[in-house]
């Protein structure tokens, strides 16, 4: 299977964003490995360090049939944004969005420390949805964290979101390739719960 037929644009630029501790880096690695094992060239750019300390965390994925690309996507050039946190979707769109970008957004907010202390306010969900809608060509809002809590671990919200991304069919991601990636490193019961989370994500898109 050769890459170019799998991608609507080459490179396809995906941003996964969220807050430190949400499993953003792991999600980007999973997606990267799923695409890489199909023979595509994947470049992932991410910042660690601040990743566990309440900061915004962004992973840039470039998917190409030709070569590695800059690990930083140029401004205004994202094709897809997967946001594990709604305000982070707005932050990313303002810098990397364009009229064609499509967005998958987990609707559970994580309040910045300035909001917790009362120095800042967190936007209303209505405003966030309005802004995200106006800055994208298509936006899906999903309750990934709630679904993950029902599965017993809120951090699985990242895999639910990967499932949702697969459900949009914008990138060639499927259950079998995720299973192959997971089975390399996880115990069978962990693989099972991760695949369930993935399935839930896929269904969330199909039912919208």
């Amino acid at each position, binding site marked *: 299977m050769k890459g170019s037929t799998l991608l609507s644009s080459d490179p396809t630029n995906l941003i996964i964003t969220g*807050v430190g*501790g949400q499993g953003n880096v792991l999600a980007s*690695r999973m997606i*990267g*490995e799923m695409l*890489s094992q199909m023979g595509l*060239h*994947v*470049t*992932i*750019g*991410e*910042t*660690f*360090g*601040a990743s*566990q*300390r*309440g*900061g*915004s965390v962004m992973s840039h994925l470039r998917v190409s049939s030709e070569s*590695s*690309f*800059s*690990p*930083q*996507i*140029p401004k*205004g*050039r994202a094709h897809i944004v997967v946001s594990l946190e709604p*305000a*982070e979707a*707005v*932050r990313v*769109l*303002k810098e990397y*969005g*364009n*009229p064609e970008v499509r967005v998958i957004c987990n609707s*559970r907010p*994580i*309040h*910045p*420390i*300035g909001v*917790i*202390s*009362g120095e*800042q*306010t967190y*936007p209303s969900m209505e*405003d*966030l949805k309005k*802004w995200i809608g*106006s*800055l994208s060509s298509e936006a899906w809002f999903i309750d990934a*964290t709630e679904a993950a*809590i029902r599965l017993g671990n*809120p951090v699985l919200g990242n895999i639910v979101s990967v499932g949702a991304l697969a459900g949009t069919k914008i990138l060639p991601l499927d259950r079998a390739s995720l299973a192959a990636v997971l089975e390399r*490193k996880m115990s069978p019961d962990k693989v099972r719960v991760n695949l369930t989370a993935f399935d839930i994500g896929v269904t969330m898109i199909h039912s919208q």
Partner: protein
Amino acid sequence: MLDLWEAAKGTRHLLMGNEAIARGAMEAGVSVAAGYPGTPSSEIIENLARASGERNIYVEWSVNEKVALEVAAAASYSGLRSLAVMKQVGMNVASDFLLHLSQYGTRGGMVLVSCEDPGALSSTNEGESRPYAKMMEFPLVEPGDFQEAKDMTAWAFNLSEEIRNVVMLRSVTRLSHASGNVVLGELPEIRAKADFKHHGSMVDPMEGPIVNLPATLQVLHNRQQERLRAASAVFEKSPFNVYEGPERPELLVITSSACTLYCREAVRLLGAQERAGILKLGTTWPLPPGLMEKHLSRTDRILIVEEVLPFLEDNVLALAAVLSPKIGIKTFHGKLDRSIPMTNELNPDVVISALSRILDIKYQAVPDSYRKKAAEIGPLGAPPRALTFCPGCPHRASFWSIHNALQRDNRKGFVCGDIGCYSLAAGASGFDTLKTLHSMGSGTGLASGFGKLASFGMDRPVLSVCGDSTFFHAVLPALVNAIHNRSDIILLVLDNSGTAMTGFQAHPGLKANAMNQTVPAVDIPEVCRAMGVAVEVRDPFDLEETEKTLLEMMQRRNGVNVLVLRQICALSPEKKGRKRFEVKVNEKVCLGETCGCNRLCTRVFKCPGLIWNKGENTARIDEVICAGCGVCASICPAHAIEKREAAS
């Protein structure tokens, strides 16, 4: 994660730059690897440590970077291939030994990897270490993508053995912590044998004693320069120096490292492939003059793109001046004419903007209407996320007590800090407690100095903080200094049982080493007591006891006192995901705005696990974020926050 020691030749994998460097070292048959943890370098040693059994590599987290370089050098002197790994600031620590290492030269292939952090994504500076290669006269190579990160590492060992000196490989965050596809090479058979030969003459490079003395200096220095010329000759034909573009471009872009990817993207997005050519240099010191003459002759306009300071630019300009009778007068763009900024990391957009100016090409990523819509949302659409201590972090509790003790003492005492997660205590999440922040261990050195200023009228309590790993790395000499010179200071060791900030690497205070073997742990309180100072150990989660102990120490004023605050990091593998306490706010007890505490828990303590529920006028615990440390239960004056032992 891929088991790097198993994956077969010819297979293609998605590897992080640091994984690619580790695999490259394995393909070169490295026998000894040593480093000190530091973002973005740590995964190189971690991956080699994972492979240590299968590949028969001795891997250690050394006490600091200078010792790491010395440990690696001992292997080279014994004929083995060795690797030393550090981040940019570690190069400064290692530099004293590095000067002497390079002057004498090496035996077994020796590679020094420096992972740098342009833009200071995970550092307190964006310092450079490339100038060390020039200053201390050894070759410098810089991979431009993930495949090269592996290939150049393996090749650097050959180069080192060919010229008999250390070779520096420089990476940056956007390579080390980025990932790309890499085709693997072969892993050699393991058959290294160590033997340190020292019976030859003083200047015998392979069999003499390895000593740097005034008497032999000129012999050694001349030999060092010959080796650099030999490297330059190799670089003339290196496949890692690549030109792509038209035979006679309008503009020649000279670049290296991650900037290569930015330059390619910029040329492509501007559609300037017919006008601009890119010379990607993998060997950046010494610059090979023949190769440079050939490419500089292509055109009269040249743009140099690099991070951070104009190292490559300065060297190209110097060479161009020498070559000018042959290549003619050129117009150079880069840092010096401000085409490229002198600070911060670069990205494709910075290069696009330089190229679009120089080549006069219009570029607009998104339509004005979209930009306008985005701007209308304003900055509050995505409220800023200040970094903060994690939920359940012992440092938040420690600094709560330190801050309160200083307030209660009321003599304007202050705290000198250094590098670690606890650096965040310079800001609101650590109650603005740190008043100085420099390099590893510097808080204690500064405290030692501040503690001697009483005779000049500055008679205030002086405290310093350090982590457990930092204590061994650079605090020990400063502590000895303070003790010996009778400086009145309190050293707080925030012992969270690991090099937590960089991912729980081993350090001398722990019972397991990098390869997970059992080793003797050096006990911090015992070390301090042996040096004759008073030491107390407390659990920082016990706020009352911690504050009381610290206040007593501040009142003693009898030289150095040490307080070890011991509590495992909330993210450590043994603690992560396990809540000790179920924490709840009893909404009937929480008095909200009428309490008089002025929302102490959320406004001041500010743990991310706490939420202020405006509608209900009470605090609330976010059960998804709360780590169950239970500390907030001790700060609530109304006792509205309740904790009970969680079922295990």
